[in-house]
């Protein structure tokens, strides 16, 4: 049970808001030593774990092109586009993206969305623009709240869509683990079908919350009073 102290390091480190890189490294060393590994074995595990998870970093390759199109006015163009679509509100942009993200993930297209390739260049600026169209320049706190919610729609849509797709990590992990450990023969399709009820509930909850963002934004803009900044509400990043 002593190895659980490593988990404690993580919890305390994050609670004290220490630098996450240090917290994780120290937790790894502590857990390894308490688990009876030698320094060499711990470093080997560090290296193997790091090398085996490089696929998480591939999103970085889209940053040059995202930066280049942003330099040439992508976010401004997103705002102009939203300005022309009168019926689009922030909540509807977010809810529509949630639905698209969930449906595409459910048919196996998990990696077409994501924070670098769709939330930052498209979803967040469009959601913000829809609010600016309605309320004028936004207080920075309201802009940040909209952007954070845009990120949450990407996560919720992806998580609760992907499990419906049979040939994806989660379903295959379940069937392969259960079949080899307990000698069952589960069909991936059955596991995927049982993910549908939760997916529907997720869409209802987060979709309703997305639409509700409109009212939250209106309330917060009123509470913040008249805008003090004279610019166009654009956020310099």
């Amino acid at each position, binding site marked *: 049970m002593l*190895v*659980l102290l*490593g*988990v404690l390091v993580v*919890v305390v480190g994050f609670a004290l808001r*220490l630098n996450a*890189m*240090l917290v994780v*490294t120290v*937790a790894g060393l502590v*857990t*390894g030593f308490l*688990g009876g590994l030698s320094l060499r*074995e711990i470093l080997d*595990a*560090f*290296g*193997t*774990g*790091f*090398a*085996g*998870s490089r696929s*998480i*970093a591939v999103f*970085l*390759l*889209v*940053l*040059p*092109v995202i*930066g280049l*199109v942003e330099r040439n*006015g*992508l976010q401004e*163009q997103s705002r102009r586009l939203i300005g022309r679509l009168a019926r689009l509100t922030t909540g509807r942009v977010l809810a529509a993206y949630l639905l698209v993200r969930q449906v595409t993930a459910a048919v196996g*297209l998990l990696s077409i969305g994501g*924070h*670098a*390739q*769709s*939330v*930052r260049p498209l979803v967040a600026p469009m959601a913000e623009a829809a609010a600016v169209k309605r309320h004028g320049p936004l207080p920075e706190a309201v802009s940040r709240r909209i952007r*954070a919610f845009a*990120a*949450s729609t990407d*996560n919720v849509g992806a*998580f609760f869509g992907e499990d419906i797709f049979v040939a994806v990590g*989660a379903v295959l992990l379940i069937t392969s683990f*259960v079949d080899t*450990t307990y000698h069952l023969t*589960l*069909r991936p399709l059955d596991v995927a079908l*049982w*993910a549908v*009820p*939760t997916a529907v509930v997720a869409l209802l909850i*987060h979709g309703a919350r997305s639409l509700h963002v409109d009212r939250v934004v209106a309330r917060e803009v009123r509470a913040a009073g008249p805008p003090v900044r004279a*610019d*166009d509400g654009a956020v310099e990043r």
Partner: protein
Amino acid sequence: MIRVEWFYWLIGLFFLAVAASVVRDRTNPHRTASALFWALLGLSFPYSSFVVAGTAPGWPLGLLVIVIAVIAGTGRLGQGSGAGTTTPAERTRLAERFGGKVFVPVLAIPVVTALFATLGPKISIGGRPLLQPLSETVIGLGVSAVVALVLAMWMLRSRSLGVALTEGRRLTENIGWASVLPQLLAMLGLVFATAGVGKAIGRSASAVLPGGVLLPAVLVYCVGMAVFTVIMGNAFAAFPVLTAAVGYPLLVQGFGGNAPAVFAIGMLSGYCGTLCTPMAANYNIVPVALLDLRSDYAVIRAQLPTAVPLLAANVVLMYALAF
């Protein structure tokens, strides 16, 4: 055959380019340490290929990871103002000039990725698959980034690759150490597994459980999946542990639950935990940096009011549908 390793080497090359440009940026208060951070990260990607292939030992990479963690953890990863970009006024003018064209490269990313993910595995040349099997989507994302960049440079008349690299460097510096945090957490997950953390948690989960009543067992499985996922940052790590402790022996064998329903809803309970944890850095911390949100917990705060009722719904769904 197109190999996924090529794209890992490309990421390494990109980090080295970032390092080369950071080291010349005199506005960065820690330019030497910062450049060292990006350079070591750049070298780690090609070296990792040999570790994965088993032709190089893992410990030098582990040591390298500790060095970059110390650079970042002691506040020596700085950001200069050297990677400039256009002003809002210039961007408004450029948006008028290019119009909807700027969307084309961005939309090319999902289209190309989807093509590779769906058609990629079916294409083979001379009996050998064109894309490395099981890595088609990662390859697709890498190819789509390159295709989109070429499209953008052509359509936006940006002839110099340097401009795109400078923009890429600016965004990468904005993300900072959060760009490698997901890999460090994956690494911690492996150490946890090797040291037996999962088994210890599984034992405590079965210890708190009263026998013979269904609802507490369902609760412990679903909430346990969520809590353990919060700790590990990954539902895939929690699943085998909680399933061995509660899911299979109690819910499936003891109460005769429908196995696919128990396991699917159990896994999705873990995903509710993923929505709540900074340990799932690629979902919850990287967007904080990408979207300039200031608070590390901004995305998690936006997700909590969805995650909690959804976890409750999972308990109800499992109780009602699986037994």
